[in-house]
């Protein structure tokens, strides 16, 4: 059998989002592969230059749809770094809670989502339904389910009320109680073991050379997490662990995501306890209405640990009321482009969606 050219995506059920991999296969084995991003390219970096510092908060959550809050936090922290702005302590804690909630939501979807490419359809049903409880918190907190537009320059947009705090406590208990079900259904499943164990191995050297971050790197046995290495917000004031594994295969990557959920729950509980009370959760970056608030000249790079790895915003200001340039480092940029070209040849067609799912290739953040 000769080589057959296949367009894997963009409208392919195994594809995560709107992305495409063009490849030559022989039988079921991939011979050559090239990523084809750009189906979600909207020109964010250009559009952000055309909007005010403050009105950009409507735009940035859209860069990464499954976990929008990291964009808001990154952007806000970048601007605050340039402006040397002191954010109210309570707002910082709220931000941390929001970021960890978003991480849980994303991981629930990713852990359930692994059922998609391998055919365990019960898992995504559960995962997405449980994630919806977190979206309910977001809705109560920020007024929207997906695009929260909640973390703004100088703090957060509205205060965390006791009612919402209560809701978070309850939801955390609920999600914790659901975790054994996932463990039984997914991670003890023999067939899942046989599908994922030892597949798509990435060694530590390969991962570091490629620039992979997040669970892809931690599955190779190093504890590289931006929250620990370069702590932001109050991550140095809470107690949590970064789970790691040594296999570097698809299974351990998914399992690490699963194991991060209890850690995030732990962080949220600590944050709710340690958070100071107060009404002020927002300070303006400079005097004036949002149309004319200016950020002093300067540039800064801020990165945070998203559910998929190091996510960064590079912000340049020329001292006006609009950003001069904003560049985004999508967490899945290396594995989504270089990784596909380099590491997919030699694997099988079935492994392509597994790569996309376990390495969390997120099309919108690559395309922007």
């Amino acid at each position: 059998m000769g080589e057959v050219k296949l367009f894997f995506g963009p409208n392919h059920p195994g594809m995560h989002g709107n992305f495409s991999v063009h490849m030559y296969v022989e039988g079921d084995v991939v011979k050559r592969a090239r990523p084809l991003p750009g189906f979600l390219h909207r020109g964010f970096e250009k559009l952000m230059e055309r909007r005010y510092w403050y009105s950009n908060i409507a735009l940035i959550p859209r860069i990464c749809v499954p976990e929008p809050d990291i964009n808001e936090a990154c952007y806000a922290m970048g601007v605050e770094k340039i402006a040397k702005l002191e954010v109210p302590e309570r707002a910082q804690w709220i931000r941390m809670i929001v970021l960890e909630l978003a991480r849980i939501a994303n991981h629930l979807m990713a852990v359930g989502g692994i059922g998609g490419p391998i055919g365990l359809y019960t898992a995504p049903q559960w995962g997405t339904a449980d994630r919806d409880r977190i979206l309910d918190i977001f809705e109560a907190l920020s007024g929207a389910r997906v695009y929260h537009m909640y973390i703004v320059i100088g703090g957060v947009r509205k205060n965390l009320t006791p009612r919402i705090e209560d809701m978070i406590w309850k939801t955390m208990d609920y999600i914790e109680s659901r975790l054994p079900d996932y463990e039984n259904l997914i991670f003890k499943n023999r067939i899942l073991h046989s599908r994922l164990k030892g597949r798509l191995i990435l060694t530590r050297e390969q991962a570091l050379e490629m620039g992979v971050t997040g669970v892809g790197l931690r599955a190779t046995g190093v504890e590289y997490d931006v929250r620990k290495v370069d702590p932001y917000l109050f991550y140095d004031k809470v107690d949590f662990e970064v789970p790691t594994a040594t296999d570097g295969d698809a299974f351990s990557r998914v399992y690490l995501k699963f194991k991060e959920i209890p850690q995030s729950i732990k962080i949220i509980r600590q944050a709710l306890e340690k958070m100071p009370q107060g009404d002020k959760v927002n300070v303006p970056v400079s005097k004036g209405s949002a149309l004319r608030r200016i950020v002093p000249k300067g540039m800064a790079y801020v990165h945070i640990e998203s559910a998929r790895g190091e996510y960064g915003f590079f912000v340049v200001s020329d001292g006006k009321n609009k950003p001069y340039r904003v560049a985004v480092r999508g967490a899945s940029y290396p594995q989504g482009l270089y990784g596909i070209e380099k590491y997919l040849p030699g694997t099988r067609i079935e492994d392509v969606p597994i790569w996309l799912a376990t390495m969390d290739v997120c099309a919108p953040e690559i395309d922007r």
Partner: protein
Amino acid sequence: MAMQELPKKDFFAPLKAWKFLGKRPVTIEVPNKVKREASDRYRGFHINDWSKCIGCGTCSKICPTDAITMVEVPGLVRDHGKLPQRPVIDYGRCSFCALCVDICTTGSLQMTREYIHVSDDAEDYVYMPTEKGLNAKRGLYEHGKAPLGWIKDENSDILDLVRVKMPMEEPEVRVKSFIEIVKGYSKEQAQQEAARCVGCGICTYTCPEHMDIPQYIESIYKGDLEEGLRWLYRTNPLSMVCGRVCTHRCESSCSVGVRGEPVAIRWLKRYIIDNVPFEEYDRILNIRPEKKGKSVGIIGSGPAGLSAAYFLSTMGYDVTIYEANARPGGVMRYGIPRYRLPDEALDKDIAFIEALGVKILVNTKVGQEIGFDEIAKKHDAVFISTGFGLGRSTRVPGTDHPNVKQALPMLKMIRDYLRGDGPKPPVPRKLIVIGGGNVAMDISRSMARLQTMEYGEVNVHTLSLERSFEEMPADMDEIEEALEEGVEFHPGWGPIEIVIEDDEVKGARFKKCLRVFDENHRFNPQFDENNQIFIEADMVIEAIGQAPDYSYLPQELQEKLEFVRGRIKTNEYNQTAIEWLFAGGDIVHGPDIIHGVADGYAAAKGIDMYLSKK
């Protein structure tokens, strides 16, 4: 370090999921069985309270999606601080970020919890929000019944409601001399204050002169003062004066001021003038009009006269101003106290107007040094702006005493004295000022300063008919500053008589005023005759209003002119019933400088039209 134990394989573990066969599903049965209400902060479709909305258009400026356009609504009136336009929202653009709600200057724009709107017709997605909200197709709620969702609070508000504090002299310091109180903004402060402006332009409509306020504020914000100066001189040649003593009606209509403190428009204007050197004016403004070879005579060099002179000369006319006093400027020179408007400021404005070729003949009182007919003959058109120079009296017993003075002559005297042009005015130990307007404040505070300089203490009693500070016609900050300086206020008292013993003023007696205006809003005070007080004083100054002096006008002209309550009636171009005679300033509109400037501008246009037709 947390190395994870990987879970072991277990054949039967997945089968545990079968337990959910017997459990209730988590499905929420929308939309048929359950209507799911959104959270109480939900960002749904907009509503807009038209009675609150002022049409400022700030929502459309902040909108990151360009979804909001302001559309003029026929039938809405253009009122003080209101524009007859309302936002139209395009749900083919809106991203439901609620920034429009957060920045809304009045709080009229809000969001409901309605979130379903499904239609096959794209036309259904554009909408002008009203109090009832979107008529959502297949929505959760009946039209107009959707509960409120996202509401602005202190944290989400992105409008800056607090003014940048203007640096001022402390009361203890300033009362000792006539130095200027307001120090003026620094560059940072001015830019910060300019950043508060939302550029709605409501102030432009309110300003009698329709100055390009948002434009020059934006120039300050951008740091381009030359552009700002050009904007100023487009409409107002007396910016230096207006930047200090304008009654700033614009600020009362400022959209930021609906919920907070208005933008300090006056001080921003002053900031531009203070910070552009006079030598640069000519280069920046670059006024090189073509000469038209016609001339215009202007009587009175007050705000209206100077303004008309400026605009006429930019149009290319030869302009001559006739001024009775020794220095040009009228009320700006002789009425307003020095601590509010130093001479240097006025000189700068006048010098620029003179530099344009305007001739100012001082000490030329029309009717004495030169006849009105002569002026009329010499020029193609004449503009009169002689102002209200005569003081009014309460006419209670004792007002004919020499120590019962009129405010305006006193103010003139003080300024002349401070300038070194005249003798020192008499300074009483105890003073009563009657009146509640700005002139009363000026004289009270001037005398307070003189008293401090003379005796080291202030003893000024200011009495007015109006029963509260709010009712008093004087500016609130004037009253506050006067209080700080030690002036004692007695609002709500009307004079009965000036008590004179041994030909000396001993004080005055007052009775309680019950109301100032009657039901028809006419001036018709009522008093409680039994409630009286006596205040000791060496001198009484009356500051209850001024009156015009038309004696210089020949009799036959006066007969032709129409007068309404002492003011000359003109058309919109300030043309009087005599077609070559134009009038402006207090004798037409009153009562402040900016109206005078506006009159000058309108008259200049009118004269230009009249002369080009001729």
